[in-house]
């Protein structure tokens, strides 16, 4: 009995040490980040005397953005949607990621991405876990009932991808097919409205599952956002993009309902980014072809 008690004591002590060590680490991390931010601000002020006024305005804006944690803008995103947002070599990358970082930089805040499932993003935003959601999120009336959307920042249409040897040539061939979609996306809604009951719409949680199912012949086609569809089709020998469907889709950045300060700041910055052609630079890094007129 004695022995056992010692064991328990030792185990508890070890656990306590571990917890303490972890906690310390975290504290250090936070401090470091704070220091960095401070340093950056200091440097800016020292070097660019001319811009001091700008800086002050920015800092004031930071205080008023209504962020959960001052100086950090937490962005919720489903980082599994190449080329908009994905993780490569342990880093967040993609069009949305670059755009959000640019916005954050101009607002003088650090953007921190939190990876989450597409279908819970808006609930999490509503619950205060994020400050914004940027995740190739189409602006819809339905969604606008629970969150506020920024001005559109991307125009995207839908497309259908099939196996190259399937003989399917377009949306007119869908009779009797199983069509994979990503749940809770506009593509899913469009497919359900327009393809059912001629075809069966099969919902998947993410793009990897949908395209894996297509390649393993569990569905006949995948219907999804055009940029994602072309990315997948180009990256594969066996898949082919056979149809583009114009759905007048536009993506927006979502903020918590009523957070007007943040929304206004984002909209103003977005307009700036489009105006000084930074938008074009980011766009051409991830997509081929011309920038749509509204963003030129």
């Amino acid at each position, binding site marked *: 009995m004695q022995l056992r008690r010692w064991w328990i004591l030792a185990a508890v002590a070890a656990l306590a040490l571990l917890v303490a060590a972890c906690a310390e680490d975290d504290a250090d991390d936070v401090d470091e980040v704070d220091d960095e931010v401070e340093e950056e601000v200091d440097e800016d002020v020292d070097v660019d005397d001319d811009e001091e006024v700008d800086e002050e305005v920015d800092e004031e804006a930071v205080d008023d953005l209504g962020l959960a944690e001052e100086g950090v803008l937490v962005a919720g995103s489903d980082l599994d949607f190449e080329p908009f947002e994905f993780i490569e070599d342990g880093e967040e990358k993609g069009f949305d990621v670059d755009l959000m970082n640019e916005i954050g930089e101009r607002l003088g805040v650090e953007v921190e991405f939190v990876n989450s499932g597409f*279908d*819970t993003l*808006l*609930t999490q935003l*509503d*619950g*205060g876990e994020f400050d914004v959601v940027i995740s190739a999120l189409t602006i819809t009336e*339905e*969604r606008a*009932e*629970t*969150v506020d959307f920024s001005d559109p920042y991307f125009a995207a249409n839908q497309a259908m991808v099939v196996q190259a040897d399937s003989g399917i040539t377009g949306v007119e061939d869908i009779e009797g097919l*199983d069509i*994979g979609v990503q*749940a*809770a996306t506009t593509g899913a809604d469009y497919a359900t409205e327009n393809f*059912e009951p001629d075809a*069966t*719409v*099969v*919902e*998947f*949680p993410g793009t990897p*599952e*949908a395209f*894996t*199912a297509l*390649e*393993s*012949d*569990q*569905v006949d086609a995948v219907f999804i956002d055009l940029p994602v569809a072309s990315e997948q089709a180009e990256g594969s020998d066996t898949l082919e993009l056979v149809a583009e469907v114009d759905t007048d889709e536009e993506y927006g950045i979502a903020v918590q309902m009523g957070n007007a300060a943040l929304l206004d700041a984002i909209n103003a910055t977005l307009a700036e980014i489009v105006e000084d052609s930074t938008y074009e630079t980011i766009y051409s890094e991830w997509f081929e072809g011309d920038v749509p007129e509204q963003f030129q």
Partner: protein
Amino acid sequence: MGERLEDVRRLFFNWEVMTATFPELLREGLPNTLMVSFGAISIGIVFGMLVALMGISHRWYLKVPAKVYIDIFRGLPAVLTIVLVGLGLPAAGIRPWGREARIAAAVALGAIATAYIAEIFRAGIQSIDKGQMEASRSVGMTYLQAMWLVIIPQAVRRVFPPLTNEAIAIIKDSSLIFVIGLSIGQRDLFRVGQNIAQQSGNYSAVTAAALYYLAITIPLTYLVNWLDTRLREGPKEALPADDLPATAEPGR
């Protein structure tokens, strides 16, 4: 604090959303969840017994495959097993159930259940006193006869509680089958709830689904407990006097 609690209530326990969700859950989600779960549990019990018997065998060619099987399927994340069965097998050209995701899901969950249930049965069988096997053999039974007629009936009775645990785990894991793609009509409780949550932007629909899970698992627990007691002690009137001394040592 009060405001935060109100947020929780609004986001997760919105009674209006929940009541609006109940009928669809009952119509589509519940039958699919039950089909997949009980399919998986049946597969698990049959093959679990087989793997358990292989595992306690002294012949290496029975014992080794059983151990390897248990190690792998107990160790893999359920989601991966479901994807490998639901999307991997068809990719390899093995598609005995066509595109029926629910059967693929039942097989995948059944494969996981087999590993866990095999260990449960093994523990049960090994908990039966060795003397019983020796006695059965000495009256002329073969090993398999002794196993089937004497050891296994007692072992199964003993492992009812852990078997119930496993059944509940499978019922809950059936919420993962969405990963291999579900069309309307195939959706399980979780997916139906999630779907409505997406449309309404309110997660209470999933909470509503959660109530259905409780409505399956809690009665199941008590049913098995009742059955367990009944099998141990027989009908109520035949109860022997409680002659166990109360020796429960505090702190053990």
